[in-house]
């Protein structure tokens, strides 16, 4: 090991080398731990950590729905990080008949995600959080909602109504599913 205080040219460059070396190795060491740590923290950016209900889920017989909206809960197995939860409520929908067609509206308000209720005597939907009114067809009437109520895919097989539950981005005009 070198001894004595560093002075002069040769010693100065040695000192410079040691300083740079110290800095470089320190950065390397920090990176070796912080790199993987950052990757771990960022894991949810690239990988879904929850899942469930992305297939059609039966909600009842065709005959149990009419022009008057009925609120149905959608049950599905849900994976939440390391847990698998069997048949829990993942969301709900307003289901009603429009002519021969069956329509399902997500109860999640497109504005900020509160729950939309049905006001039977006015035959309108209302999100009471911020006073968004929707027609029975789901269209925006008054209030801050940027778009109509979100419809969910439905199908009827052998008299059984099934809904594919999805969530959509809130606060924007377009209806974009959240992957």
């Amino acid at each position: 090991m070198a001894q004595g205080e560093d002075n002069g040219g040769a010693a100065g460059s040695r000192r410079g080398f040691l300083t740079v070396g110290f800095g470089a190795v320190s950065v390397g060491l920090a990176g070796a731990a912080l790199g993987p740590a950052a990757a771990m923290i960022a894991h949810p950016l690239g990988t879904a950590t929850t899942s469930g209900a992305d297939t059609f889920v039966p909600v009842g017989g065709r005959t149990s729905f009419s022009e008057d909206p009925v609120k149905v809960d959608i049950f599905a197995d849900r994976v939440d990080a390391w847990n698998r939860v069997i048949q829990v409520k993942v969301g709900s929908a307003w289901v009603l008949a429009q002519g021969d067609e069956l329509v399902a509206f997500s109860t999640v308000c497109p504005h900020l995600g509160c729950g939309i209720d049905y006001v039977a005597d006015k035959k309108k939907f209302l999100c009471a959080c911020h006073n968004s009114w929707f027609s029975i067809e789901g269209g925006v009437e008054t209030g801050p909602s940027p778009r109509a109520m979100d419809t969910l895919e439905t199908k009827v097989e052998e008299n059984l109504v099934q809904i594919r539950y999805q969530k959509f981005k809130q606060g924007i005009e377009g209806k974009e599913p959240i992957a």
Partner: protein
Amino acid sequence: MSGGKLDALVDAVEDRLGLISSWEGFRDRLVHGGVRLRHVFPALITYLFVQQAVLGVVLATYYSPSATDAWASTAYIQDQVSMGWFVRGLHYHGTSVFIIVLGLWLGQMVLHRAYKAPREVTWWAAIGMLGIGLALGLTGNPLPWDQAGYWGILVELSITEQAPGGGMIRTLIQGGSDAGNLSILRLYALHVFVLPAVFGLLLWLVSRQRAQHGLPAPDGMSDAEAHKTTQRYFPAQAFLDVLAMAAVAGIIVALTMHDHGAELLGPADPTENFQARPEWYFLFLYKLRMFFEGPLEPVATMVIPGAAVTFLVVAPFVDKIGGKFGRALVLGGMAVLMTGTVGLTIYGVQSDAADEEFQKSLAATEKSATEARAYAKAGVVPLGGPAVFFNDPEYQTKMLYKEHCQGCHSLDGQGGDEGPSLEDYSSRAWVSDLVRNANDDRFFGHTKMKDEMDPYPEEDLPAEQFEPLIEYLMQLQGDPGVVIDEALAKKGAELWEDELECNSCHEVEAGEEADGPNLHGHGSQAWVARVIRDSSAGDLFGDYAAMPKFADKLSDEEIHALAAFVVKQRGLEPAELTDAAAAPEAEGDDAAGDDAAADDETPEAEAAPAEAEGEAAVPADGEAPAEGEPPVEGADAVAEGEAAAAEGEPAPEAADADAAGEPADAAPEPAAKPKPKRKPKPKPAKPKADRQNGRVVYGKKCKSCHGGTGKGDTKFGKKNNISPLSGGSRASIKKAIVNGVPGTKMKSYAKKLTAQEIDDVTAFVKSL
């Protein structure tokens, strides 16, 4: 921002916080006697501590400290989170390296007398750090709540309990009388908050000493020389320090890569005989205990470690005693301590490596860990780690078995004896015992079959007949997993054909009906599946069947899984569930390899019950969904079946029975009914004996004992002294058939033949 303004800002911050001067103070600490490798330890310790803390925080963003979630969340980190395995590995191996570095530092301080005044505080702090390091390991290892962690902490707490007041300490650490949520949270709180805080305090003490006195000059160097060679800490010593850190980091990364993170065994299971071993850094204590058994155990767990710690604490003072004597004492003591620890550790590792039983159990543990972690990827039902095995199809089958079968059949010492035992079901031993006495409680003793088949003790069926017979019976099972002595089985087949009376009640050609079950493919997976579907099929147990028909209650998959479960009980490899279950009518032939051979045997027999089931199942399925029963939740076939029945569907049993060509009056609880008559075929008002049919019936039921011409010239007949049949009156013949002949082997056929058949046979015998 201009240079002037920046300087002003820097000055302002410096004025308020003094960051630069504090860095300069750190940078300019004195290294007496010059830069040396021996001085790297405090820096290494600091580096490791900071790294462990950072990684620990990152792990804490995924880890969930509860008995239900700890294992599952750790498995998630290890197997699913990006770089999770790496971070967990660094944190785990970091602890090991931490402890080694602390041990080496203590050794270095002794060797260079670095603990002498005024640096005793550094020495004591280092001893404390080693203690905290071990405690961090002790509290950290149980956190995944896997087998190693769980059993490890239990043993460690038991050791604690031996100390005075240990019971109370155990209850406090454990958070109660048993390990669970509170134990994990307490260990977690210690590991994450308390111990690191104490460690930080100790580290601060070391730093204060260093600021106050710099790094020590080598022992024995003159003050003048030390002064001459003294350097600033930065950059030379600092560079050496980071190089040492890089070397240590390299070791930790290498260990992490080698182990792909850190070991994670299966979830904590209090019922398993896990062979608990402590982490390697406690192995020496574990081995030390082996030398002090029974009441002496505290010597190893308390006295020796206590003495060692005391010795370390007073070492700086001992060192000063009586010239070289004290020095020698310290060096000697340290040597004993080091060699003892290292020696016991090596001994522990080697003896475990040589211990076959331990290695075997380790292999089993690792296998179950792999399995558990594979299942965990589907998510663990939040009932705690062991619930991961709910995902195992075999477990689900076992639950089905418990629900539907265990009430009547026994297995592993549990269950009813209404039906035959499934312990080792249809194995060679099982079949042998059944032939010897089918009326035993283990077989048909509590069924309608009781006393229908005579016992065949040694004197009736000597070994030279019995053994070929059993071999033939095993061959009839048709499972490729059963090794058959072909010659012996052939002999058995000949005996069956010509001498034994078995064939009077049992057919062996697929599909043919007789009094007893057709033995073609008996005990095979396909056969068991048929029995589960409907044991009352004509070629199975017919009217003697008491077992509920599960064709409507369980899905094809479930029935085949149960059948597979049953044949597995005797170690046979079941056919793939999908082969047979998915499409019983078509797939049998394509089924992969020999596994499916058992199924291939009876494709025709398979089809009938499947059709029957189809008819019953359609309306049931159509009805259930209207109830809003979501099929997604695993379409509980049982629930559907029940719902259908409750809604006044045509009774599934009846529908099924019709389709299978069985009497429609099969009651839901046949056990409660008197023994039904044999096949209530429509009887003509005035029976007229059909001698031709009598010949056929005779061939099936009588010939094996009485011979083709009624002379009783079969081996069995000769052995039992059967008298010729000719010469009797029609009434006496009929009486013998109906009642049997007391004192002979001739038993009653009243229940085995219809009245018409009895008349027919009587007519035929009369004609002999």
